[in-house]
């Protein structure tokens, strides 16, 4: 577990430094793959695969990236609506299947996953600003999870109305311990007596992240919580809640930290301000990094089969397949734990940050 976390940190710190610069990212993915292989088979041949036809880096990026259209399996692609806005043409809506296979539709073309305006010769028009509001794979997955959450929790709340004073039933009895756990072990100790105001947000946060983490593990699903824009939105909401509920102590601590000589204030105040922004930043990066890394590890494990086929033919590929399958299942199980753990940690840290912004005295140490 710790070793896999270490792998993830190494892998993803490399990815963060140059996100989605494919050539650079590829090398690091191969590195990650190589470290894995060393444990499994004792030889690393990740670097040699580059010249072959199958490109693991491309395969992985294709799977973890957002996309117009939802590809469940090879050749089975659900087209999604493309919604574009440009000043000269207004709103345009069409199906994403019109843009498949590098086709040009209405002067639009997909270049590296982004929609660009092109001229008659098929060249990009650089001065045309096209705003893309499309329902992409991630947006569709987000909407799906919202519907799922609404269905689950309206059934739970109906359960509380029907079984008032009685033991919980069905889904309700499955979720009640989790809800109580978040309330009693996470939110209450960290926020203190005023916890009830923040409970709805924190519970929503927990279940939103949990459901999306779990949805992301399904084959063919979108990688929603591994998308930095999504985790950024969550972190920004936490940031806003923390700062809007911050009390006098919180703000005074920023402007004039206790026990700091006056001459040091010009140095310390920027430092404190940087600290305020770094807390949500760490929330954003951790969730993104952990989920993305999990996907990358599983995909590189599966990619090993194809690499083996390129190097040694289908005999070797089918030979290592059972081994790879076992490791993939193992990683999948770990990812189930990670899905819970990351949702829990995001909620825990959010409530810690809220708690430290509203606590009355700064003697109390955080998180205990």
């Amino acid at each position, binding site marked *: 577990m710790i070793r896999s976390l270490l792998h993830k940190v190494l892998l993803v*710190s490399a990815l*963060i430094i140059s996100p989605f610069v494919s050539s650079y990212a590829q090398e690091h993915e191969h590195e990650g793959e190589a470290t894995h292989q060393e444990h499994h088979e004792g030889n690393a041949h990740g670097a040699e695969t580059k010249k072959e036809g199958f490109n693991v880096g491309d395969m992985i990026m294709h799977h973890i990236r957002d996309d117009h259209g939802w590809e469940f399996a090879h050749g089975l692609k659900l087209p999604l609506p493309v919604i574009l806005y440009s000043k000269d043409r207004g709103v345009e809506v069409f199906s994403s299947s019109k843009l498949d296979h590098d086709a040009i539709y209405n002067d639009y073309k997909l270049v590296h996953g982004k929609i660009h305006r092109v001229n008659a010769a098929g060249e990009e028009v650089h001065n045309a600003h096209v705003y893309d509001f499309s329902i992409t794979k991630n947006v569709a997955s987000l909407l799906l999870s919202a519907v799922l959450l609404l269905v689950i929790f309206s059934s739970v709340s109906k359960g509380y109305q029907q079984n008032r004073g009685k033991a919980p039933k069905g889904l309700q009895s499955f979720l*009640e311990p989790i809800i*109580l756990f978040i309330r009693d*072990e*996470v939110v209450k100790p960290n926020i203190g007596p005023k916890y009830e105001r923040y409970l709805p947000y924190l519970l929503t946060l927990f279940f939103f992240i949990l459901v999306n983490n779990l949805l992301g593990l399904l084959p063919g699903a979108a990688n929603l919580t591994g998308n930095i824009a999504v985790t950024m939105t969550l972190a920004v909401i936490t940031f806003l809640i923390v700062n809007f509920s911050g009390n006098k102590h919180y703000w005074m601590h920023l402007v004039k930290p206790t026990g700091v000589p006056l001459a040091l204030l010009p140095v310390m105040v920027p*430092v404190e301000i*940087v*600290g305020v922004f*770094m*807390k949500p*930043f*760490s*929330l954003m*990066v*951790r969730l993104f990094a952990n989920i993305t890394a999990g996907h990358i590890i599983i995909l590189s494990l599966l990619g090993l089969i194809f690499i083996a086929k390129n190097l040694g033919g289908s005999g070797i590929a089918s030979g290592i397949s059972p081994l790879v399958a076992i490791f993939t299942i193992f990683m999948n199980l770990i990812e189930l734990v990670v899905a819970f*753990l990351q949702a*829990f*940690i995001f909620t*825990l*840290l959010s409530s*810690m940050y809220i708690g430290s912004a509203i606590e009355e005295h700064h*003697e109390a*140490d*955080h*998180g*205990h």
Partner: protein
Amino acid sequence: MENKEQKPDQGEVRKKLDDASRKTSSYAQYSSIAFQMLGTIGLGVWGGMKIDEWSGNKFPAWTVILSLTAIGTSLYLFIKQLPKQ
């Protein structure tokens, strides 16, 4: 909602649970600090590079100054968040 029957004989389990959740909590806290340090240093280096690019210096003075400052800042923020014991 609370189950009163379970409370008395659950002391042992409760203690273990508390222990586990305290451990996870400190794990969460420290890993959060790590990402904060990463972010702070990254911000410093990026800002320094941007200023150097903008001012057209030959020697990347701002990058050096700001990255070192950022390391100091990240260490300060790290020490500040350690539990007071």
